[in-house]
């Protein structure tokens, strides 16, 4: 039983399926990472879990409830947070307004949550009156993650959070993600930087052509010679 579990998901956008019996899950306070070659269906698998891909088969369980039929925005209300890979901030709005919009579904006071995000990403406090579109790539990603955190999600899903940022910023982001997981949030992310991502992962999924190829702890996957040779460049 997983806290969030997509089981035997099969589906695609058109006639052809992209995912074939693919299963992905994550527990509270854990980090699960989906890796694999280009076109393996990593992002698609995550979108399927979030309800952005019509499924022909399989189902998605979240916190003991079947959410397969729910729309993405309904899953947000249930406690799922999603950070898309691109276009993940409101560029014309200030950092603070971005966070406010993240908390749109909440009716209680959001000041504590904003303070919490600023604690996690101090640079955002400095830039809070600046339009998010004027920030650097790494700062934008922080805004994007911060926006998704504003609803206090029980699971946070990140689609390639480190795409296009420098290695230093990447390490920094991974550190923050570990901190978020310590708050008892389940984290599911897709990563291009497979090696670094598996290092912080409690669980790793290697997908190939929309199917589960290897599933193990991050550590064991890194130690597995077959995985190393085929997917981690030796």
């Amino acid at each position, binding site marked *: 039983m997983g806290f969030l579990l997509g089981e035997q998901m099969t589906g695609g956008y058109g006639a052809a399926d992209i995912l074939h019996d693919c299963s992905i899950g994550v527990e509270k306070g854990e980090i699960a990472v989906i890796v694999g070659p280009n076109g393996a269906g990593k992002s698609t698998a995550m979108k399927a879990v979030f309800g952005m891909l019509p499924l022909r088969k399989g189902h998605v369980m979240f916190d003991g409830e079947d959410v397969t039929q729910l729309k*993405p925005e309904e899953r947000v209300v249930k406690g799922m947070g999603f950070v898309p890979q691109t276009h993940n901030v*409101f*560029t014309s709005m200030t950092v603070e*307004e971005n966070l406010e*919009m993240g908390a*749109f579904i909440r009716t209680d006071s959001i000041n504590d949550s904003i303070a919490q995000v600023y604690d996690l990403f101090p640079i955002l406090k400095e830039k809070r009156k600046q339009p998010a579109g004027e920030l650097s790539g790494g700062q934008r990603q922080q805004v994007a993650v911060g*926006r998704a955190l504003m609803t206090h999600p029980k699971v946070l899903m990140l689609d390639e959070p480190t795409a296009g940022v420098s290695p230093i910023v990447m390490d920094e982001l991974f550190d923050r993600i570990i901190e978020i997981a310590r708050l008892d949030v389940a984290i599911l992310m897709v990563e291009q930087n497979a090696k670094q991502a598996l290092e912080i992962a409690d669980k790793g999924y290697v997908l190939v052509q929309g199917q589960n190829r290897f599933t193990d702890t991050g550590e064991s996957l890194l130690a597995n010679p077959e995985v190393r040779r085929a997917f981690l460049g030796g």
Partner: protein
Amino acid sequence: MTDFFNALTLLGNFLIIPGLTYGSQLALGALGVTLVYGVLRFSNFGHGETMAFGAMVTILVTWGFQSLGLSIQPLPTALLAIPVGILATVILTLLIDRFVYRYHRERKANPVIFLIVSIGVMFFLGGLIRFIIGPGDQIFFDGTRFILKAREFKQMTGLNEGLSLKMTQAVTIITAVIIVAAMFWFLNHTRTGKSMRAYSDNENLALLSGINPDRVVLITWILVAALATIAGTLYGLDKSFKPFVYMQLLLPIFASAIVGGVGNPIGAIAGGYVIAFSELILTFAYKKVVLYLGPDNMELESLVQFLGTDYKIAVSFIILVIVLIIRPTGLFSGKTI
């Protein structure tokens, strides 16, 4: 020195006050166009007729009030009737959205289809308006005509030239300032206003943040209807109400919105004044101004005019073309509200 003040008065009376008035009317109109573009993502050609519809209802209610003896002297009774006009126009825009635009929105139709549909709406509304109030000129102005009369100004200052300020001009400018300030306050400081900006900025992310698109669309149409009614009524008060004039107004209004950067409210307002002043500056006859400022015995054959007033409408068109060639995103880059 007197000559200098005479020249200044002349410019103030025929250029600055009319420019501010006309600019305010265009700015309010362009703000409506820009909101539709920013949130619903199409160019609403029906906006001119929406303005005419709002003005028409306001006129009918004004006549009703007048026959009941209701008035708010020295202000025009029409100001009292505007809320009813807004209400009727809100109902109209919501009905049109429900039965026309929503269908295309659900199918995620191409903006060009929306544009053509809006032209259909324009003709429909134009017909409806002529059917109800007729194609003729309607006068609905009452109250005090002038706040400052040219003759009084001359007596006060001893100048040859007079400066006059019509009640409609003052009402137009003051109303525009209040409405624009309220609009910006709403967009920048309220939750609903911010959600509109968020939706305009990034529709998918707004959805992921739990912003309800139907509500954003609803609020947008309410604001657009209110802006259109106010702009239409102010224009009708200042000039006169004639249905076909509102269709002609569409060009300077779109020019204003595009010059400022379509989708950008600050741009729409700036664009309104740019277009209004360009039209007036280029078609104004400077003969008397030059005579005042030139040497005493100077004589002038021509009117010292860049363009005849017949070409007034062409000015906004030329500016529109120039902006589209040189800076297609407008003075303030548009796209989101």
